[in-house]
């Protein structure tokens, strides 16, 4: 590992990320924060939950990402009657030329590098939970046989925050398995013009592969190499502790409106995402600013509000804003 030239590796990393961004930018206008968030999840080895109203380009973003990375892409449209076997696959009876019959596992759409789980909250919890093992262990177990998923494995789930009828909110255990929860905002007026220009013309943009799978795996390893000083790591820990109402330093909003704070997975997510951001910035170490930048997408879905918080229409982003304002980056 000491043979690694950090400077060159980081420069190469930055160049590759810039190439992917540029390729995605051909299909997606604006949404830089979302694109960065998805890239962080991809490079940090996590999954992303995209939340936004229909028509904001969530599916297009995932498609563009898969095209730019030359990865196997599959899409599942989640519906209430979707069954786990529809996702994971099923065992079929196959008869060969000699007439001998045997069972053969027919792989489901989950066996891909990038899985788009569209409108994930429209299916039942039974089907939602079929993703649990795949997301955490990167494997699928059927009939006592475990099938590993090929790396990289990235789940990009979308959900619509407007329609609540006929939906099944994701259970906390599954939410916790998403590295980021990204909110897709409505584009600006200039971005809207650009979107119209690109999508209503005679030709549509053609995407090319700019990053091979092996390169992506190498980038994932590089992310883990980024150095983190103790005081920066302590900052991430103190931020996570502040989401618990019974911990010292919890702000007023947390004490009043939070039922459960973030899990240790939240701190892990913060730190690994901050490392990725540090590499984006060309640094060898993580700065407190990196932590601050990733706290909201990494923790907003891990904080469970109390009834009072729901009744008062408090959002987890408000709570995290107060936490960020109260917790100093360094003890001094």
């Amino acid at each position, binding site marked *: 590992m*000491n043979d690694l030239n950090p400077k060159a590796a980081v420069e190469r990393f930055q160049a590759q990320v810039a190439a992917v961004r540029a390729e995605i930018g051909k299909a997606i206008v604006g949404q830089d924060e979302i694109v960065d968030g998805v890239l962080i999840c991809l490079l940090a080895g996590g999954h992303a939950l995209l939340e936004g109203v229909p028509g904001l380009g969530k599916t297009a973003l995932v498609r563009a990402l898969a095209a730019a990375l030359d990865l196997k892409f599959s899409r599942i449209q989640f519906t209430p009657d979707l069954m786990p076997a529809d996702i994971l696959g099923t065992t079929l009876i196959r008869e060969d030329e000699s007439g001998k019959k045997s069972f053969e596992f027919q792989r489901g759409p989950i066996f891909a590098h990038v899985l788009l789980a569209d409108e994930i909250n429209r299916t039942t919890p039974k089907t939602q939970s079929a993703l649990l093992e795949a997301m955490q262990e990167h494997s699928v177990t059927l009939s006592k046989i475990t099938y590993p998923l090929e790396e990289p494995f990235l789940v990009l789930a979308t959900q619509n925050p407007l329609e609540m009828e006929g939906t099944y909110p994701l259970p906390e255990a599954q939410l916790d398995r998403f590295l980021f929860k990204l909110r897709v905002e409505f584009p600006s007026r200039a971005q809207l013009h650009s979107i119209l220009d690109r999508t209503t013309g005679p030709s549509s943009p053609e995407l090319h592969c700019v990053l091979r799978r092996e390169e992506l795996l190498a980038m994932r390893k590089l992310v883990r190499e980024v150095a983190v000083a103790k005081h920066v790591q302590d900052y991430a820990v103190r931020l996570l502790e502040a989401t618990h109402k019974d911990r010292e330093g919890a702000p007023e909003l947390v004490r009043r409106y939070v039922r459960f704070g973030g899990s240790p997975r939240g701190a892990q997510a913060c730190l690994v995402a901050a490392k990725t951001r540090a590499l984006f910035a060309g640094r060898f170490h993580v700065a407190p600013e990196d932590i601050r930048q990733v706290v909201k997408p990494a923790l907003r879905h891990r904080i469970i509000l109390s009834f009072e918080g729901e009744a008062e229409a408090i959002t987890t982003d408000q709570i995290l804003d107060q936490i960020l304002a109260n917790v100093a980056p360094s003890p001094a």
Partner: protein
Amino acid sequence: MRLQRALDGFALAGVAAAACAGLWLLRVRLGAHDDRLTRALLWSALALPVLGALALAARRIEALTAATKLDRAHGLHALVASAWEFTALPAEQRSAFMQATVADAQRLASSLSARRAQPLHAPAHLPALILLLLGLAALSRLHVPQPSTPTKLQRPQLQALLASDDLQGSRAELAALTTQRQLTPLARETSERLTQLLGALSERQVDRAQALAQLQTLHDALARDRHDDAAIRDALHALQDGFSAQRITQRLAQALADNDRAAVQAQLQQLAARARADKPDARTLQALRDALHAASQRLATHTPRPARPEGTEQASLLHTSQDRTAATPAERSLLEQKKRELDQLLRQEREQRAMQRELEQLQRDLEQASQAMQEQPKTAAEQLDRSAQDIEQLQQHAAGAQTSKALQERLAQLQELIRRQRPGQGSQQQRAAQQREQARAQSQGQAQSQSANGQALTLQHFREQAGANSDKQTGHKPGSRGLLMEAPGQEAGNISLPGAAQSASEHSNQPGDTDSTQLRMQATHGPGAGDGRPHSAAPSSLSGQSVDSRVEGQAGHGPTRSEVIFQAAQRGFASKAYEQVHTDYEHYAQSELERDQIPGGYRFYVRRYFQLIRPRQTPQADTTGQP
């Protein structure tokens, strides 16, 4: 960083030093130049800032803190702080990225500026220090007078509680009360204290609470002294009954009923003269003897037994237990108050005994005169002269008690004036004028009812006039009187009539009468000045033909309180039982007023109500059967 900390410490300790310097300066100004405390303050003021600066500057500075400051100042995203931490690790534990971080930090180290990381700024406590120093400068210029020349502390001038014309009016009325009438010792003392209080109010030396408390004290003292009046009037009434049994003493009885002291003296002197005659008529002597004996017997039954005033025992106990229980200032204050009350009660008891002795003396004189009337008429005449003196003294007592009552009412009015004197209220002049008008009407009403020179038109006179006058509604013939008539030159006043309105509605327009702009029902226009206009008001329901008589009975066998009040409403507020009811009820109302249970705006009306339904001074109207 150490310099900045030194500055912070200097400013922080400088605040404390400035406080010490202020105390030192104050002591020096007060003359304590050389004592130990003054010197300690001076040295503290000098040493504290230096010590504070040294203490903070010597504190350890964390390397990570300094590194963080450098990162912030130069926008290095925790590069220096992270590199500082990584260098603390053993070399074999450092990753390539850690080494790269340290190398980056070392490369940039030469360009980092410590001054940029920690720029000097004003200490946070500097404004407070400057303010204190300015205060010190002001204090140093302040001239403190030397203690050798004692100065009289100027009491802050309080808000005026009474308008100046109210004060003048009160003083004039108080002077009129005290100079024209007989005063009991308590009334004299009260008037003196009231005069002092009015002076203090004029000088604005007492506040509202003090003034009200003093007025209440005076009022309470007078209230406890009121029983004298009733006892004397009761005795004189019994005497009148005794004398009215014989024709020869009927004029004397009438003079007693009129409370006409001069007429009583004249009648008694006439009786004494008839007894001194050379050959007194035996039948006259016998009649005189019987009259004197009857009066003596009546008086004997109405002479009050000496009773210890209520509360004396309790006050005595408190007085004797003073040394044991007076532990706290509050208890001492309470005991002092009880002691004063005890003194008042004892004085009241003494006066009661003195009055009783006078009544017994009168009874003995009358009895001796009765016994000596047949054999030694001249001795009987001397006894009659002595009896005249006794009656004179009793009437003086009664007049003094009436003065006390008038004084008490004036005190209540003053209390009400002060209570109603609040900032933000309407025109003070208007209220003061209204109050003066009420006070004047009250004073005049009392003057009329209390006057002993025969100017007042008593209820007895009224009845006689009313009975003699056949045309009550149109009585405008020359020399005749209307239903309510006053003597020429007499001021308007109220006359005790059942259901009558207050005095303003009963004013007459006699020459010399005061202005009466309100309702003028039942009024005449002077002798021979009738204008023939019909009167619209109904006559009084009180029959002028009736003859009031006292009904003998035992205490407790009289009417119930509700019957007393009902009878008072029908027949007039003049019975003795009603007087007791009124006293009790007024006491209850007064207690509630003092506890501030009644809104301020209604206090006046409560007092005015009880003033209007107060008992009248006409013992003849006592028809309730209460002995």
